[in-house]
């Protein structure tokens, strides 16, 4: 009894001599193999060649600065509470007089760590941030020798200074991070 129309019955009759030497089947298989030599390659030579990312690609995080080079992050903790993987930890500190050119608000993140092994690059931190401080960039986490190396600290995350290190800043920005206007 056939349950569906898609099923075909297996032909179990004994093979003829021509079939049993597999000549035709071998040729058919080789034909497929050889035809692939002339097709477009699916792979690229990675370190030299790189694919362009999709517009929505989410890579390593950067902590943004404003146009004067002050850090945007105020350690409000919304990224940490939004993070489904609990990859973000931070410690806040109060801005001292004279540090106004370093931090935008009176509170700043003294310690800010993202565990890239835990991170699932969902981008919820970016969405939660009320200060435009965290963005997901177009680079991904490079290999490392130890697990410790994947815990990214503030010095790994904060974007280069837009005035003092203009080139590095533009590179890190990568056309993705928007510079936000002063308040």
């Amino acid at each position, binding site marked *: 009894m056939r349950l569906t129309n898609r099923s075909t019955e297996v032909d179990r009759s004994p093979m003829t001599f021509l079939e049993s030497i597999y000549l035709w089947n071998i040729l058919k298989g080789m034909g497929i193999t050889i035809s692939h030599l002339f097709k477009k390659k699916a792979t690229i030579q990675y370190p030299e060649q790189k694919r362009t990312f999709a517009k929505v690609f989410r890579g390593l995080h950067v902590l943004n600065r404003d146009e004067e080079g002050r850090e945007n992050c105020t350690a*409000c*903790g919304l990224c*940490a*509470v939004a993070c489904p993987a609990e990859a973000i930890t931070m410690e*806040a*500190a*109060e801005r001292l007089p004279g540090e106004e050119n370093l931090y935008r*608000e009176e*509170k700043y993140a003294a310690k800010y760590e993202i565990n890239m092994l835990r991170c699932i690059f969902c981008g919820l931190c970016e969405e939660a941030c*009320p200060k435009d401080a965290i963005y997901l960039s177009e680079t991904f986490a490079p290999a490392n020798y130890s697990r410790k190396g994947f815990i990214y600290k503030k010095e790994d995350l904060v974007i280069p200074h837009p005035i003092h290190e203009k080139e590095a800043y533009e590179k890190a920005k990568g056309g993705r991070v928007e510079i936000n206007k002063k308040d």
Partner: protein
Amino acid sequence: MAEEVKKEAPANFKVTIDNITVEVAPGTTILNAARQIGGDVTPPAMCYYSKLEGSGGKCRTCLVEVAQGSEKDPRPMPKLMASCRTTVMDGMVVKNITSERVQDARAGVVEFLLLNHPLDCPICDQAGECHLQDLGYDHGKEGTRYEFKRRTFEKEDIGPYIQLHMTRCILCYRCTYVADQLTDKRVHGILDRGDHAEISTYISKAIDNDFSGNMIDVCPVGALTDKTFRFKNRVWFTKPVDAHRDCPTCCGKVTLWNRGDEVLRVTARKDEWGEVQSYDDKARLDLQYLSF
């Protein structure tokens, strides 16, 4: 028998709030009657504080519509009433969440309260347990129509434990009532009036009293914050644990806010309306010394 019923009849007033009828003692305010019902029916209150005499009537967030004044005089009250200051009458019909007018007025009140508020929640230590935040979330509109410069004040250290951010203040007067009614000497109050009104001490005089820390708990916004907890952590990362300390002058019931094994903050225990259950500053300070 009939006389007995008559005697008991004036003892309780029947009041209907959002189609829920409840019997309350005469002299109860609409707000407290609604709190007896609980849930969504209860109007929010920013300035009213059940444990502080004379509080209420300032913030106007608890406005309700009185659709029927009483059994004997069923005319509706023409204007929205502040439920924290209006006492119930027998047979009163009150509309809170069922009234379009109330919802609209409340959105307006929130806009007014937020006119000069800096909205610096990412920095503010009160964020997460701030009544103004809750109020704005529940009743506020998304944007503001205010185009002028917001009034600003310098932050002020009043005493070793309290920091005053006057910019965040909504002038609910709760902290002054606490100082008046709980401590023997009040050294802070409201200076100036109208838009210029501000809470301050006599030329930054320190507030140094065993019970003055309750001002922090009483403040519905982040105007008075705990200096020992300043920027230590966010409220939602800490876990509350009830604790007790043998204290000769206060009840000693406090809540410890932990992160891991570390005690980050000590506050009074609060009830479901965000009011402290008991005043307990001595214990708070003692425990704070213990934990740091």
